[in-house]
């Protein structure tokens, strides 16, 4: 393919000590959002062993969280926290899934919209009861999120996925160093190929498990914890 546009050129992102290569501006932003999503699910003593997510839902405010970790307010990524918080009623309806990143496994995917979700359309067309359609849909592995079911996309990643994210960025950057790409497609395919290779390689961060398995396991746990928490809070959600 002959190159014509340069609007989606590859990007580099600096996260602290390292410079990473990423294929698009969108994926640079997604890295930041994935990190935030993961941080929100990690319990901390500063929040009485609650996760920031739980604390924000209970207090209906992110103040506790920001006061416990003042560094967040000073970080250049603070505006992204504003984008994702506070967690309002919208967080608990099925549409919330389209505001989630999908984590590392979906780092290079475009923004997913409800109109792209053929599985949801299928379930709505097959069931008169909307709740029943959503109940089936949330458990069904989706092509839009690397076979993750919507409930795990909604739940988000955690500590392990956060660490794996940096590991993958280092892996990818090592692999593509000094490579030149003819088209945006070429760099995107290279990035995705490396992701799919990396996700199956046993990784010390997750005790020798393949990252893909560790990510799913962790999301399962986070989903369980979130479900139990919301039930305890008597908050209704489409995802439980």
């Amino acid at each position, binding site marked *: 393919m002959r190159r014509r546009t340069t609007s989606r050129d590859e990007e580099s992102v600096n996260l602290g000590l390292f410079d990473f290569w990423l294929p698009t501006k969108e994926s640079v932003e997604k890295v930041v959002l994935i990190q935030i999503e993961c941080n929100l699910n990690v319990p901390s003593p500063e929040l009485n062993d609650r996760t920031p997510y739980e604390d924000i839902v209970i207090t209906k405010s992110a103040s506790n969280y920001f006061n416990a970790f003042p560094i967040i307010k000073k970080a250049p990524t603070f505006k992204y926290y504003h984008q994702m918080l506070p967690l309002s009623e919208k967080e608990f309806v099925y549409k919330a899934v389209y505001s989630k990143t999908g984590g590392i496994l979906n780092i290079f995917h475009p923004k997913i919209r409800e109109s792209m979700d053929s599985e949801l359309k299928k379930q709505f067309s097959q069931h008169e009861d909307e709740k029943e359609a959503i109940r089936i849909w949330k458990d069904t592995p989706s092509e839009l999120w690397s076979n993750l079911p919507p409930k795990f996309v909604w739940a988000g990643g955690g500590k392990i996925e956060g660490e794996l994210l940096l590991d993958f960025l280092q892996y990818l950057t090592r692999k593509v160093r000094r490579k030149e790409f003819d088209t945006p497609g070429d760099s995107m*395919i290279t990035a995705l190929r490396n992701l799919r290779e990396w996700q199956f390689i046993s990784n010390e961060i997750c005790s020798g498990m393949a990252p893909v398995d560790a990510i799913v396991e962790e999301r399962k746990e986070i989903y369980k914890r979130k479900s139990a928490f919301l039930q305890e809070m008597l908050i209704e959600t489409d995802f439980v």
Partner: protein
Amino acid sequence: MAKKSLQRYLAKIKKDYNVVLTEENYKNIILEELESPPSLLDYFRDYMEKNKAKITLEWGCLMFLFIKADEEKYAPDIEKYYRLLETYTPNWFTEVGLAELQLRYYGNVLKARDGFLKGLELKPDDAHCHYNLGFVYHLLGVSDKSFEHYEKAVINYQTANKPKEIKARSLYNLAVFKINVEHDYEAGGRFLKEALALMPRYPEAKRALKQMRWLR
């Protein structure tokens, strides 16, 4: 207006490719330009017959220019002639051409998936579409569907332009799935040997087999 654009297309084809398209020859010229595989020529004969009331010399010009843009891999013209052909019944060649553009040029994997699926609707059991869907689903992280499409590409390989190559490459990808996802080295090795029997100089397959022996 339509007459004017027809004259413009005819003049462009004459000037750039030294071909004179007429009402009488355009169908044959399209078939000549497509060349192979036989299943594609059969598909287009059938398409032209079924749509004979709709297709015109203008369609012939636009198809000719689309085929040339596709050969030259020139993205803006592929999109331009695809759009102009949208007023006619969709066909496999343009749908797949645009899907390849979405994948290889823009890296838009989801749009590419939709295009190859449409291609498969228009030409069921097409090995080229199955092969590409195997690749697209691999990139999307949907391993089971990727495997399924590579398997179908192996079964229907004779419908492809380079049948042996498509079959060998699909077998290689099945092997990679068996090894990486299922850790089934025996099945992986079998697929690699089959791929090498079809394409003895296949470097990736040779390397993978060597690595597997080393691992054992």
